[in-house]
Every structure is written in C-alpha cells, then in structure tokens.
C-alpha cells in the first residue's frame, strides 16, 4: 500500500500549517545545483550545497529538534527569493534567519557579513576588524567555512587580501559563478 504523492503532500502541508515542525526543509533547484534549504519558526536556518536530505536530517534534528519534515511551504519565501536572486532580479534578501547553531563570535561575524553589499567584495581581515578583532582574519575564515546559510549570508563576497578567491564550502567554481552573477568579477 503506497501513499500517493497527493496524500503525502497534504500531510506535509497540514503539518507545516499547524506549526508542528521544529524545522521544515525542501530541495530547491538552482543554477549552481540543487540546494537543501531548511527553516524554523524563527527563520531561514540552513542552506546545504549537498542536497541529499539523508546527509543532514540528523544534524537538523540535533540542532533544532526531532520534528524535521520535508515541506515546500516551510521554505516558500526563501525559495522564491533565491529564484529571483539567481535570475538577477534580486540584490538583497528579506528573510529572518535562525543562527541558533552558531557560537556567539560566529553570530557576530555573520551579522556583519550580511551587510556586505551585492556585487562587492570584502576581505577576511576587514570583516575581522569590523567585529573588533583585527587579528582575527583566520577565525573569520573559519566562520565563513561553516556559514550555515551560504548565498543568503554572502560569504562568497569575502576574498583574500590579495584578491584571490581563497576558498568556498560549495567549491571555488561556485564562488566564482556567484560573483560573476553579481557583476563583481568580469564575465
């Protein structure tokens, strides 16, 4: 006896509509490959480049609670804004974020990161100075590497002091692609 896609969808929608989820997620297609997007009642919580749900369910349950369910409506607004961003129609995201999983220093850095404007780059050192830790470029690099919400929190706009792209959790080619999309690199 197999549950039909329609029955399945109705349950998932009802679960989200009743506010019963600790975290809802869905897989969102994008020009840089499928993304796993997860949100809580506080806001957008995670974007994973590796979109296989099985890889992330335990982490999501551990961080936000066991009521983890795939449900498109939970990430509706993030999905729409990401589509607009990749189409070149959106230069800033209007989304609440849930940074519960991040340490206080990381949260501080991520809040500063969110202010780096579309189409511009900054350096790890500059970001470190902005959170009052001028020697903390390396620590900032670590925070970027573990950024829970890449793309929306634009760690792709942070580069080395010599202008090199340095690194990116989603791969350097993805970082380059995002910067080209934003016109921060020559096409």
């Amino acid at each position, binding site marked *: 006896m*197999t*549950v039909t896609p329609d029955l*399945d969808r109705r*349950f998932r929608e009802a*679960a989200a509509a009743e506010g019963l989820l600790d975290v809802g997620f869905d897989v969102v297609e994008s020009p840089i490959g499928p993304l796993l997007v997860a949100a809580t009642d506080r806001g957008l919580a995670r974007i994973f480049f590796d979109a296989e749900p099985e890889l992330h*369910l335990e982490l999501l349950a551990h961080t936000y609670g066991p*009521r*983890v*369910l*795939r449900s498109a409506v939970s990430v509706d607004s993030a999905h729409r804004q990401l589509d607009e961003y990749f189409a070149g129609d959106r230069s800033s995201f209007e989304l609440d974020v849930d940074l519960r999983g991040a340490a206080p220093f990381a949260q501080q850095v991520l809040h500063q990161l969110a202010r780096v404007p579309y189409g511009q780059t900054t350096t790890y050192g500059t970001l470190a100075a902005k959170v009052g830790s001028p020697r903390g470029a390396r620590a900032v690099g670590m925070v970027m590497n573990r950024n829970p919400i890449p793309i929306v929190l634009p760690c792709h706009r942070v580069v080395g002091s010599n202008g090199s792209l340095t690194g990116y959790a989603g791969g350097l080619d993805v970082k380059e692609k995002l910067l080209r999309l934003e016109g921060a690199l020559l096409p």
Partner: protein
Amino acid sequence: MMESTVAVPPFESFYVEHRDVVLGFLRRRLGRQAAEDAFQETFLRALRAYDRLDHGEHLRAWVLTIAARLVIDTGRRSKPESYELPELPVEDGRPAYAQIEHLAGRLPPTERAAVVLRYAYDLAYDDIALALDSTPEAARQAASSGVRRLRAGRIHDRYA
C-alpha cells in the same frame, strides 16, 4: 541492567518508514476515503507527541496504536444517534482501551504491545505482526504470554 535505548529518529525518517504500513492498516479498517483522512490525522497526532518520546523503540507499534485509536474514534462518530451502544466495562470513566493500556503498562515491551493492540484495539494478528516486525504466530504467542503474565500477576519489578 539498563536496556540500551534507540535514539528518536528525525520525524522525516520515521514518517517515510511507516507511512505505507499505516495507510494499509487504515484502508483495511475504514475503506479508501476515510483512510486518507485518518492517515493525515494519525501522523499529525504522532507529530504533536513526537518531541515527548523518550526513545525510538517500537515506533511502528506506537504509530499503529495511534491509528487504531483513531479507527475507534471514527467508528464512534459515524454511529447513527438512535443506535444503542453496548455498555463497555468502564472504570473511573476511562474507556476500555485506556484500562488495558494501563494494566499492560508493566509488561515487557513486546508483550505489552501485543496485548494492547490485540485486546484494546482489536487488531488482527497479521496487523500486530506488522507492528512488531515479526510473524502472526509470534504476535499470538506474545499476546497470550502477556495475558498469562497479567493473570498470574507475575510482573517483574524492572518493568514497573
């Protein structure tokens, strides 16, 4: 001795693992259309209780118990008003299944599940086997040894 406990899995994994079994059970009891409504309600109830689970053992039996209770509720609601319900043996206002669940609370887990599903929810041994991930014959044996144990009052302290 401590029993090793299984962690509660993320709800998505639990739902995907048991949804077909639950739907099959509900269809046999309620028919196609009513089963779909009850299916959604079963998993919504499971979701409401999910963050209060202490461990991830016997989750199939747990969710089938929720489904079976819903079948009973659905049966009650759909009875015409003029129909006289037979008197159920009720003690301090609790329905029969609540009493059996209470009594069986001190049995070992498999026997408890078998007794409750058989006598409180009137499940067939085929369905109980499904719930316990075993065979109908093993389910029958678990239920009858549970009943013998209850009658004899021989319940070991560690299940108290």
